[in-house]
């Protein structure tokens, strides 16, 4: 039994990892919103210093946004540390030749260069040091300004210590000061040979001399191949609990901690009620096969099975939860407790929750309950036609004994397998039910996150949901071992 459990738990790890990777891959599909303004203002005629500053600010915002979602790093393998001087020359020459061709195309390439961040600083400095590459010094110095910059955002207040934060801010400020001196030429920088580049170069090289230690990548590049990737950053944030939700301005797990219990309890009650009704109903129906009662039950269950739960939910909301001309609503239309429920006594509080939760529970339950009882009936019928039942009948066993002692135990094996499969079906159910009745649970959170494209929140709630799902599967496995003696004997 223990060996069986350990085996099942070990199987969960790769499943969990694969699910995480798939989820991560999907979130990578999201493209960052592109904006023209960031390369120094849309209208080039009046590209004054104000526009250039605005462009710089937009750029910083954009880089910060990329950093927040981990989109500034490659997904799984990071080879940016291996960009050397020659590659960088190629990139810059490409960029230089592209100027004036097409704003958006150039922008894409600039972005490519900039999101590599600190990784590109070393080859850029090598180019700046090389006297024979004067034509590239203009773009290189501008690229340096962008790559050496450390975009900060709100969540960084929690990630860095205050000294580190101060240092980064100082560094950024000196970079910005340098950049503002050049803003007038920021558009020209890629296009023409700049005459003042000598002084700029001096400034940049001085700056690099002072802060060299944080930009040196040559020792880190091997560790960065797998370590400094979007996936690892995400995993690190996930396991240290530092996923930051942009829309909620809080840590993702803090938001989820308030929400997950609601969903969990709703689902536990729903599963319990569904099994509690479905099994007796299925047994009763199967034992009375062919009678009018059986036929009616089967037909009703069939139609209930075909009724989509969002239809039933909307109907209940319309008829029972909305004030009409004839009178006030019977049930509350939103939430799982009254607004002032904190001041209620225990009993009243529980009654209040039951009152609020009744309709959501009905909608959540009936879909799985119809499937379960239909399967229970057909399964039990199959078992009742088996040979061992005929033997039991022939030796004169009691009918109750046959059904409950022999057949039911056999059909429970199939039922538990089916129940495990139904757990993942519950997800569709509770997302829809929480949407209809505005219950602040995981499903509504996930929907909000998806609609607002808050990637960390999506990932966080997906991970928690999948974890709950895995626990559900584990419980199903335990039950499976309980009802199936073959497994117990196999694993001793």
């Amino acid at each position, binding site marked *: 039994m223990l060996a069986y459990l350990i085996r099942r738990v070990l199987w969960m790890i790769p499943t969990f990892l694969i699910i995480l990777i798939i989820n991560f891959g999907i*979130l990578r599909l999201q493209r960052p919103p592109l904006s023209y303004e960031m390369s120094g203002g849309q209208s080039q005629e009046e590209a004054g210093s104000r526009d250039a500053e605005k462009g710089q600010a937009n750029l910083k915002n954009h880089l910060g946004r990329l950093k927040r979602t981990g989109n500034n790093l490659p997904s799984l393998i990071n080879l940016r540390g291996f960009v050397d001087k020659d590659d960088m020359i190629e990139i810059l020459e490409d960029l230089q030749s592209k100027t004036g061709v097409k704003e958006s195309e150039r922008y894409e390439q600039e972005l490519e260069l900039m999101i590599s961040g600190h990784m590109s600083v070393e080859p850029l400095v090598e180019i700046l040091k090389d006297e024979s590459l004067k034509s590239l010094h203009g773009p290189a110095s501008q690229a340096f300004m962008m790559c050496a910059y450390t975009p900060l955002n709100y969540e960084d207040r929690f990630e860095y210590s205050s000294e580190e934060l101060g240092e980064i801010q100082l560094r950024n400020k000196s970079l910005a000061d340098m950049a503002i001196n050049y803003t007038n030429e920021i558009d020209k920088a890629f296009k023409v040979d700049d005459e003042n580049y000598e002084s700029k170069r001096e400034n940049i090289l001085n700056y690099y001399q002072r802060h060299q230690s944080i930009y040196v990548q040559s020792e880190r590049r091997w560790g960065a191949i797998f370590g400094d990737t979007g996936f690892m950053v995400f995993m690190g944030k996930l396991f240290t609990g530092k996923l930051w939700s942009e829309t909620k301005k809080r840590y993702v797990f803090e938001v989820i901690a308030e929400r997950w219990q609601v969903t969990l309890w709703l689902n536990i009650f729903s599963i319990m009620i569904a099994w509690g009704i479905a099994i007796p109903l299925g047994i009763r129906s199967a034992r009375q096969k062919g009678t009018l009662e059986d036929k009616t039950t089967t037909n009703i269950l069939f139609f209930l099975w075909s009724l989509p739960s969002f239809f039933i939910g909307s109907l209940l909301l319309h008829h029972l939860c909305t004030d009409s001309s004839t009178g006030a609503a019977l049930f509350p239309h939103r939430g799982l407790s009254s607004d002032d429920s904190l001041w209620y006594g225990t009993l009243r509080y529980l009654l209040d929750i039951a009152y609020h939760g009744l309709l959501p529970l009905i909608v959540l339950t009936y879909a799985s309950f119809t499937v379960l009882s239909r399967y229970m009936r057909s399964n039990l019928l199959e078992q009742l036609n088996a040979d061992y039942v005929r033997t039991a009948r022939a030796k004169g066993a009691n009918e109750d004994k046959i059904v409950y002692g022999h057949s039911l135990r056999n059909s429970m094996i199939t039922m538990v397998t089916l129940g495990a499969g139904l757990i993942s079906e519950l997800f569709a159910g509770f997302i829809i039910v929480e949407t209809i009745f505005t219950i602040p649970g995981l499903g509504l959170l996930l929907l909000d996150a998806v609609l607002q494209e808050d990637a960390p929140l999506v990932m966080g709630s997906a991970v928690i949901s999948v974890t709950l*799902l895995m626990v559900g599967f584990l419980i199903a496995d335990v039950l499976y071992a309980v009802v199936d003696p073959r497994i117990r004997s196999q694993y001793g």
Partner: protein
Amino acid sequence: MADTQMSPMQLVWRRFIAKRSAKIGMWSALVIFLTGTYAPFIASEIALIWWDENGLQFPAFASLFNRLEYVHRHDLLFNLIALLLPIMVLAGVFLRKKFKLGNMVLSCIGILTAIWIVCQLPLIPGQDRMRALWDNRPLAQEDIGNYTKNPDKVFAIFPIVTHGFEQTYQGANLKAPFTMNEKTSQRFWMGTDVRGRDVLVRMLYGARISLTVGLVATGISLIIGTIFGALSGYFGGWVDLLMQRMVEVMMSFPTFPLVMVVVAMTGRNVFIMMAVIGLTGWAGTARLVRGEFLAQMNRDYVLAGRSMGLPGWRIMFRHVLPNVSAPLLIAATFGIAGSVGAESGLAFIGLGDANAPSWGDLMNQGRQNIKYAWLIYIPGIAIFTIITALNLMGESLREAMDVKS
């Protein structure tokens, strides 16, 4: 004695069609399919027949393949079906003796592809005759005054409902069923939605989306699942083990949230929705096919094929697959019902294609404006009908084929 001369498929068909539930299911599904397919002829602002001094025109037919007229890609597919269905039925009735079924299906697919390619061509400029087919000039009721000098001589036949599916009527938001529309002096038989569009017309066109998503998504998942299950069952060993683990992962994957996330991240598009529903739903099919394949692998005909030196894919897909098609057919029927439900559910929580007229989207409007009952009842009953019809067909098919669930 008659039974012995029939092929197994004919036998199943006879047993299937003898059931009342199967008949009800088939007819309801057929009615929904036909109303969806012929929606432009039932409800459209474009005239069916237009006869003025310039001659006789059929604007509704012309606009079927006018690329400026149809909005969504799946509409083109249904327009093609609308045109080809009578031809195919007639050919099926008259040429049944001469041609084999397979040839006929192949030629129909060929015609469809050819028309599809022609439809992708740019608008043809030049001669007036040529342009008439492609002309972007829907002849609607309002045009009678503008288009011709003497409106009295125009003879035009319009569809029963002359409301377009994307046409919004000012000030007609959320009107109850049977309200009169002053502009066209016609009733909104099923009321209007939030933006003042006719619900009846949107329901008709919504059938197209539901059916397309159901069929395509199920097709994708069936193809992937069959290949997966066949390979797994045929080769066995570590291939089987590896593939079973993958199936297990897919089985434990919560499909609905996954589809939600993908649709939200990549854009609200019906085709992406279909692809994702199909790509996530194949695990059940794979498991089913694998089980059937394992049962078939010990049969003599497989051994015979192997000893003759047939390649593996030929044994798998030419010989074993037809023997396991019965459970696949049943799974397909239930799969379509499931995909239709999934699409409606997604549209219901607001993740559907924002422009496409979909049943779930109408229900979403009903949920947000909860007082307007017809926005819940009408699409809800339609979704219920199509799912019930498909489930009835699946159940009857299961009983007719005598397959254990």
